[in-house]
């Protein structure tokens, strides 16, 4: 069997036109993930009563089950017991699932970054009269951010790749579109090659962004 490169070139723009859906899922999930995991991380950092054990259960569950199962459980499972989920769009369910999943990983990355900052930094902050939150905001978080960026950008690349799962909920993004093309033409190799190229390029872009950001933060402060 020979490879139909012309098909790849012709269909590329069609698949690419669904990139906005992939990006929408990825970027929104990313934003929600940052917010959610930041809150979770700070709650765990201070060992807030009641909330911390609940969060630990959540993390255990979401790290201990496959993403695909989580997405199906949210979109098809919960739909049977709650009208809120029944009326939810597939794309929103995907964003919700991806966020909950990714946050259970990124909170660990953030925690290890926070713990990498020497205790003396906090003590020095307290000793000059700052409150714990002020120390966190002015001293610890900016330093932790620098440590966290390489790990977090890995988490975000994983999130981008996982966004392809949205297609299993019937969202037509680049993976969904490529599958449709393949089904229609039986040119699966060509159709999926397009998706491989697109995902790879975006991952690379995130990677470059990470390097730039690291360099910028390095210039912003010392070590």
């Amino acid at each position, binding site marked *: 069997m020979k490879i139909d490169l012309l098909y790849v070139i012709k269909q590329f723009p069609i698949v690419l036109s669904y990139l906005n859906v992939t990006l929408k899922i990825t970027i929104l999930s990313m934003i929600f993930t940052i917010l959610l995991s930041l809150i979770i991380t700070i709650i765990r950092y201070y060992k807030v009563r009641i909330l911390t054990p609940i969060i630990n259960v959540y993390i255990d569950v979401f790290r201990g089950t496959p993403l695909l199962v989580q997405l199906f459980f949210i979109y098809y499972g919960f739909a049977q017991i709650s009208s809120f989920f029944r009326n939810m769009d597939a794309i929103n369910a995907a964003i919700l699932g991806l966020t909950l999943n990714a946050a259970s990983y990124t909170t660990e990355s953030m925690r290890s970054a926070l713990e990498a900052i020497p205790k003396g930094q906090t003590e020095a902050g307290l000793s*000059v009269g*700052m409150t714990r939150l002020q120390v966190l905001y002015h001293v610890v978080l900016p330093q932790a951010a620098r440590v966290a960026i390489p790990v977090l950008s890995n988490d975000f690349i994983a999130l981008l790749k996982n966004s392809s799962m949205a297609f299993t909920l019937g969202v037509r993004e680049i993976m969904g579109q490529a599958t449709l093309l393949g089904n229609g033409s039986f040119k699966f190799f060509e159709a999926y090659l397009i998706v491989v190229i697109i995902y790879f390029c975006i991952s690379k872009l995130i990677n470059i962004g990470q390097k730039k950001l690291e360099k910028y933060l390095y210039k912003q*402060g010392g070590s």
Partner: protein
Amino acid sequence: MIRVEGLKKSFGSLEVLKGISFEINKGEVVAIIGPSGTGKSTLLRCLNYLEIPDEGIISIDDITIDASKIKKREIYCLRRKSAMIFQNFCLFNNKTVSENITLALEVVQHKNKAEVGEIASDVLRKVGLEDKANEYPSKLSGGQQQRVAIGRAMALKPKLMMFDEPTSALDPYLVGEVLSVIKRLTKEHSITMMIVTHEMSFAKDVADRIIFMDEGHIIESGTPNQIFNSPKEEKTKQFLNHYVEEK
């Protein structure tokens, strides 16, 4: 001015401070000496609540707290009376030298930018680091970092300055510059100071009073002359003898 009564602190089953009591007058410079692991640093850390004492009364300036029933607000009030210089400097790594000095002034004391900038350059002049204002701590030597830390503490205008072995993390040839900054400080200002140190000649030189601690107790306290030349307690004699031999 400073009064501590019956201060106790345990780490698990290990009792580090076994009921410490003392008073320090305004402007007095007190050096605390003694073998390692006898609670000297813990004592300082309890005074600004970096360690939480189990019981005892701490009174600095017009604030008096009782460790057994302290409120969060009181902790912050107590801390604002004092400043601490740490063994390993603990400058804020993400801030420049001058930001290290100004951060607490802005955030805690709510001073405005212009005022704060003046204080910073004044303080940096005093510790001899005007030219380093915009450097980050990682670019400085240990001695320079510690001088910035001293500057950071001075800028707060605390009632009490506490030095927790300020030179023990430094190369021998950097010790001098830090000690001379502290020495100058003891002469220029009338800030009350507590200095935990293993530099005996320095303690002798700058302190108005020496406190000798061993195994969680204050064994003896007196003028440098008293302690170094005619110690009353056997333990003090032993410690000082040992020290002379080591040197």
